[in-house]
């Protein structure tokens, strides 16, 4: 396993960071949660963040935390699927497809919510369980997956996820 400084990976996959934060902010706006501060991209840790106001309900907390996972994954598939088509079917690699694959996989790579997102979610999930929301129970394994994924990001799990969505999925379907 080889080590590449985080800021280089962040810089190389900046579209994913921006989409991730924009998705957080979008779900804040959809759920009418105040957005206090936002950084869409920086060459620092964290690469981006959204500071939002108090979240009152579990659904909002869930969507704000998991929203980027949905948006980034979806965009990755939408961009990569047609871009990868000529490579998979005709063994041809047009230049524009390479560019689109980079954008798509960069976005897919940043789909996983951060540990902070998971932490926010679990606090709300505990309250929601007390109120009898059965969906909240499902949050716990999800949070566990998020923690594991972030732990394994050292082993490029985020890149593997991006590649699985961008290349693996079309390869399976086509």
């Amino acid at each position, binding site marked *: 396993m080889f080590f590449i400084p985080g800021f280089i990976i962040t810089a190389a996959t900046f*579209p994913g960071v*921006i*989409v991730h934060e*924009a998705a957080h*902010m979008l779900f804040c706006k959809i759920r009418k949660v*105040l*957005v*206090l*501060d*936002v950084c*869409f991209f920086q060459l620092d840790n964290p690469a981006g963040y959204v500071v939002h*106001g*108090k979240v009152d309900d579990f659904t909002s907390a869930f969507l704000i935390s998991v929203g980027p996972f949905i948006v980034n994954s979806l*965009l990755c598939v*939408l*961009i*990569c*699927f*047609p*871009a990868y*088509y*000529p490579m998979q*079917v*005709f*063994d*041809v690699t*047009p230049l*524009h*497809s390479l560019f*689109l694959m980079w*954008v*798509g996989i960069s976005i897919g790579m940043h789909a996983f919510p951060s540990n902070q997102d998971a932490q926010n979610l679990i606090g709300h999930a505990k309250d929601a369980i007390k109120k009898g929301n059965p969906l909240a129970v499902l949050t716990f394994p999800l949070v566990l997956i998020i923690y594991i994924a972030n732990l394994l990001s050292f082993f490029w799990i985020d890149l593997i996820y991006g590649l699985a969505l961008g290349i693996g999925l079309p390869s399976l379907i086509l």
Partner: protein
Amino acid sequence: MRECTCKHCTKTVPLNESFTVFGEQLCLACTEIQINANPEMPADAVQQNMDLTVCAKCGQDGGSLDLDQIMGYPICMSCAPNFGNLPFPLWIKLGALALAVLVVLSLGLNSRFIRANFELEQYYEALGSGDYQAAALLSESAARHVPEVVDLQYLSYYGAGLAYLKDDKPREALENLNKCRDYLPPNFEVEKLTKNAMRNIAFDEHDYDEFLRLAEEDYENDPKDMWNISSLASALACKFAETGIEGFRSRSERALEKLQSNDKTDEQVEYEMRMRHRLHTREIISPQEFTERYPDGWEIPEGEK
């Protein structure tokens, strides 16, 4: 701006830069000392103090008057309208638009590959069902959509070759088959089709020696192949018709005997009838002419059997 005095070092610091630690107001330096001295200290034991006269967003000093609070934060009049309601910056909106364009572009730029693959699937279906005309058109269209994939061009030549063969245009068929014969795998049987086209050309040009030579060559290569036996029977019948030499007739009839089976197709029945007609009348006519002349089939007249 309000100030406070640190309980430990008695230094005066801005209220926003002070902390309450176990109920005591301390400066940042003394707070850090407390935290380091008590590593087990609960997180909520330390709280940053908030100066309600200083805007939490832009830091503007409101003097001695408390500012209005939004969500517990002191916010000045100019920051109040946007506080907590940060709009998406223009570049993000443009970026989202660019992303939407990218998604459409990704589909649009590569739609020709998707179309070509779809046509290719239909091409193989058409080949399977014997609709060579449709196969030729489909492969030609696929090759036009993806010109960089030369294999599609070869498939297009192959499709055209088959269609011309079926339309009894052996020269055009040969021209197309020659363009792909070195590039397609053996299961396409281009070599065999090329020979077929060459035999047809020889027949059309009344070059029956060449026709027979090609037919014998194929027969020697695979004497069990029904197509080779048919060709040999046809070429020998032509030679008999041309020369009247009995040896050609008997050999042709022996070849025709090998084609006997209980489940003949209409095409095979028509073919055999035509060969018998050729051997009987010594007249060589094309399949089209034969069908036109004998739409109900032909049989050796009763008295001549």
